[in-house]
C-alpha cells in the first residue's frame, strides 16, 4: 500500500505543446516573413522578441539537451563536431551537439539547419561567448554576432555600477539588432516582455518553493520538462501564463491534497548539475526505494529568480505586479531586466566562489528537507559542475550522506551505466540502508 496518492500533471501536455511549437516556429519563421535569431537560455530574449513583426529565437542549451535525449543523433552530431570541425571531445556536450548539427546542416527537429538572421548571445562561464561564435564560423561565418557579458558579480554585490555595465551593453545590443534587421525594437513589446520575463522566472521559483512540502509534489524528472519553457522564451506571454496560471496553481493544489510525485516517498534527495539526459531511468530505479530527487540549485534557478531574505532563507523573488512596479519606459525596462537577472539568478553565484555554492546549496538542503544528496559530477558542463567536490564536503559536514558519480549530461560515451548503477545500488542499500518498497 503506497504512502501517498500520486498522479500526473494536468498541464503536462500544454507544456509539451508549447515546446513543440517553439522549435516549429523557429524553423518556419522565414516562410512567414519572420526573423530568426540564435541565443542562449540566458540571453535576454525580451529584447530581440520586441522587434517589430514576427520573431523567433533558438535557445542553444535546450537545443543541445534535446539532442542529448536522442543517443543516435547525439553521437553522430558530436562526432561531426569532433571530426569535421576538429574540436576537442571534452568540450561542453551541448555545444558539440549544436556544432555538429550545424556542420551536418541538420536540424534535430527535421530539415536542413535553419540559419539565423542574427546572434544575440550572452557570456557567463568562460566559453559561452564561443558557442555561437564557433557555430557561426562552422556555418559559413556570415551571421551578425552580438554577445553581452553578464559576469558582473554575485547576486549580493549587485549595485548600480554592475547594472550600468549590463544595461550599457543592452543598449548597444538594441542598436545592433535594429541595424542588422532593419526593424525597430518596439517599446510596448519590450515592456510587456519584461513583465512576462518576471512572471516566468518568479512563478517557476514559487513552484519550486512548493517542493518543500512533504510529500514533494514534483520530482526532478518532471521539473526538467517544465523549466525548459523558461529556457526557450521566458518573455513569451503564453509561457508566462503557463507558469502563473496553470503550473503554479496546479502544484499548489497537489500540496494541499498531499499528492506526491513519488507515492512511496521515504527519502528526499538533493541533486546537483544537469542529469545525464540519456539515462533518466536512474530516477525510476531510485523510486523503487521510495527515493525522490526533488531539489537542485540548477533545476530551481536555471530560470527561477530567488533571493536570500533577511532571515537568510532562500525565497522566490516577487513579480513586478507584486512589487507594484509599473514600467515607465525603455530605460526602466532594461534596468529591471538586468537587475532581475543579476540579483535573482542564484545559480550564477557559484561562478564567483565555492563559498557561494556551499552556502546556497546547504540552505536548499535544509529548507527543502533533504535526507541525502546524489551529485552528478558532470563532465559535460564546467559551469554547473563548479565546486562540486567542495559541495560534497560541505554537505557531509551537515551530516547528509552524499554520493557522487561521474557522467556527462549529453554525451553517452562518457557515461558508464553499469558502473554508476553499482555505485547507486551500494549507496542506497548500504549507506542509506533502504529496502525496495513493495
Amino acid at each position, binding site marked *: 500500500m503506497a504512502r501517498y496518492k500520486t498522479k500526473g500533471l494536468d498541464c503536462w501536455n500544454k507544456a509539451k505543446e508549447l515546446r513543440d511549437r517553439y522549435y516549429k516556429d523557429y524553423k518556419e519563421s522565414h516562410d512567414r516573413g519572420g526573423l530568426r535569431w540564435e541565443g542562449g537560455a540566458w540571453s535576454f530574449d525580451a529584447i530581440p522578441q520586441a522587434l517589430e513583426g514576427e520573431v523567433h529565437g533558438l535557445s542553444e542549451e535546450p537545443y543541445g539537451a534535446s539532442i542529448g535525449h536522442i543517443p543516435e543523433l547525439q553521437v553522430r552530431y558530436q562526432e561531426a563536431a569532433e571530426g569535421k570541425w576538429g574540436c576537442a571531445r571534452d568540450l561542453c556536450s551541448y555545444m558539440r551537439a549544436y556544432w555538429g548539427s550545424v556542420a551536418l546542416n541538420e536540424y534535430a527537429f527535421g530539415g536542413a539547419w535553419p540559419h539565423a538572421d542574427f546572434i544575440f548571445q550572452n557570456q557567463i562561464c568562460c566559453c559561452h561567448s564561443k558557442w555561437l561564435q564557433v557555430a557561426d564560423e562552422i556555418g559559413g561565418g556570415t551571421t551578425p554576432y552580438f554577445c553581452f557579458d553578464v559576469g558582473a558579480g554575485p547576486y549580493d554585490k549587485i549595485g548600480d555600477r554592475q547594472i*550600468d555595465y549590463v544595461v550599457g551593453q543592452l543598449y548597444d545590443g538594441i542598436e545592433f539588432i535594429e541595424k542588422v534587421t532593419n526593424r525597430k525594437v518596439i517599446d510596448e513589446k519590450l515592456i510587456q516582455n519584461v513583465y512576462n520575463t518576471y512572471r516566468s522566472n518568479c512563478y517557476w521559483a514559487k513552484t519550486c518553493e512548493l517542493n518543500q512540502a512533504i510529500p514533494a509534489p514534483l520530482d526532478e524528472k518532471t521539473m526538467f520538462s517544465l523549466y525548459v519553457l523558461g529556457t526557450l522564451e521566458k518573455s513569451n506571454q503564453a509561457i508566462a501564463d503557463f507558469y502563473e496560471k496553470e503550473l503554479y496553481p496546479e502544484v499548489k493544489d497537489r500540496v494541499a491534497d498531499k499528492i506526491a510525485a513519488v507515492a512511496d516517498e521515504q527519502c528526499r534527495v538533493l541533486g546537483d548539475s544537469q542529469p545525464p539526459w540519456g539515462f533518466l531511468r536512474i530516477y525510476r530505479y531510485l523510486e523503487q526505494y521510495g527515493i525522490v530527487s526533488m531539489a537542485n540549485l540548477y533545476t530551481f534557478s536555471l530560470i527561477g529568480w530567488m533571493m536570500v531574505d533577511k532571515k537568510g532563507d532562500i525565497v522566490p523573488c516577487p513579480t513586478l505586479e507584486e512589487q507594484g512596479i509599473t514600467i515607465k519606459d525603455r530605460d526602466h525596462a532594461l534596468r529591471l531586466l538586468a537587475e532581475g537577472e543579476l540579483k535573482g539568478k542564484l545559480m550564477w553565484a557559484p561562478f564567483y566562489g565555492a563559498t557561494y555554492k556551499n552556502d546556497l546549496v546547504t540552505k536548499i538542503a535544509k529548507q527543502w528537507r533533504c535526507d541525502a544528496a546524489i551529485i552528478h559530477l558532470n563532465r559535460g558542463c564546467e559551469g554547473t559542475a563548479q565546486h562540486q567536490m567542495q559541495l560534497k564536503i560541505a554537505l557531509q559536514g551537515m551530516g547528509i550522506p552524499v554520493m557522487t558519480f561521474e557522467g556527462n549530461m549529453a554525451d553517452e560515451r562518457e557515461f558508464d551505466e553499469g558502473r554508476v548503477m553499482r555505485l547507486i545500488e551500494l549507496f542506497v542499500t548500504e549507506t542509506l540502508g533502504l529496502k525496495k518498497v513493495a
Partner: protein
Amino acid sequence: MIEEFKQWYDDRHSYAKEWKKNNSKGKVVGYFCTYVPEEILYAADCLPVRILGGHEPPALATPHMFDMWCPFSRDCLSQGLAGKYDYLDGVIIAQSCLHIRQAFGAWQLQVPTPWSYYLCMPNAVTTLHAKKFLAGELAEFKKAVEEWVGKTITDADLDRGIDIMNTNRRLMKLVYQSRKEDNPLITGTEAMTMVWASQIMDKREHNVLVEQLLRDLPNRRLDRDQGVRLMIVGSEHDDRPFMEMVETIGATFVIDDHCTGSRYFWDEIVTLKDRLQAIANRYCDRVPCPTKDFKQGTWERKRFPHIINLAKEYRAHGAVLIQQKFCDPHECDIPSLRRQLEDNGIPCYFLEFEVTVPVGQFRIRIEAFIEQLRADELFD
C-alpha cells in the same frame, strides 16, 4: 642572467621567503591569472607572485577538483594543499576561466591564507562599458588593498607601480625582438624562462637582470644551429623539459603566445591622468585570453591576427599549438586558429599537455613535425 632566471624560477619559494625577510612591511600576494593588475600591488609595496604548478601529478587536488578539470589548475591547488605556498599573505584572482576560478575557490576553503580577493574582471573587453566597469572594480580593489596593508595608495604610488610594470614589459619585449634574427642569440626555453622568472620575482630586481641580459646578448655565442624556426601558442605553459627537448632535436622556438610568455607582457599601459582608468584600459586592450576574445559584429577573434603577425615577423616555419588538457577556452579557439595559420602558410602541430609530459610520445610527434617541415632535404 639566464642562470639567475632559471635558478630563481626553480627556487621560487625561497625567493619569496627571502624577499619577505628583506621587506618586513611588504606582503607577498599569490595571483592566479595574468589579468590581475600587479601595478596596484606594487603601488602597495606588495610582491605579486604567480601561482604555478609543480609539474607533479596533482594527487592532493582530486578530492577538491575531480579529473575533468585542467591539470594546471589542479596542480596549482595541489601545491597549495601541500603547503608549498605557506608564506603567502594573500591570494587574488581576476575573473578568467572556470578551471582556475575553481582552483581559487577550493584554495579559499582549503588552504589557510590570511587574505583573498576575487577581482571581477569583465569579459566584454572590447566595449567601453567594460573599461568603465573595470575602472570601478579597480577602485574597489585599491580600497580593499589599502585597508588590508593599512596604507593609502597615492597617485605617486600608482605611477611607481605602473612604471615598474611598463619597464619590465618594455625590456622583455626588447629581448623577444632580438629573436627575429637568424640563429637567435637566446633560445625559446631561455626567453620563456625569463618571463616565468618575471612572474615570481620582484620586477625591480628582474628589470636589472633583463637590462644586463640586453647588454650581454650581442656578445652571446650559442654554438647551435637554429634548425627549424618554431612558434609555440596556447594556454598556460611553463614546461621546460618539453621546450628543451624540442630545442635539442633540430628546432628553435622564436616566438610564443602564452600567458606565461608574450601575452603576459606584450602591451604597456598608456598613461592617463586617471591612473585607474589607464590601468583598466590596458587590461581590456591587451592581447586577450580566449575567455574574453569575442568582438561585437562578427565571429572573428581579436587574438588571431596578432598571432599570425607574430608568426610572420618572427619568420616561423611552423607552429606548435599546445593546450592544457580540458582547457575549454583554448579548445574552442584551436580548430579555428589552426585553419587561419595554415591558410597563411604556417603548418601546425597540436599537442595536449598535462602536468607531466610523456617525453617519448611527444618527441616522436615533434621530430616527425620537424621532418615534415624540412621534407625537401630528404627528397631532393
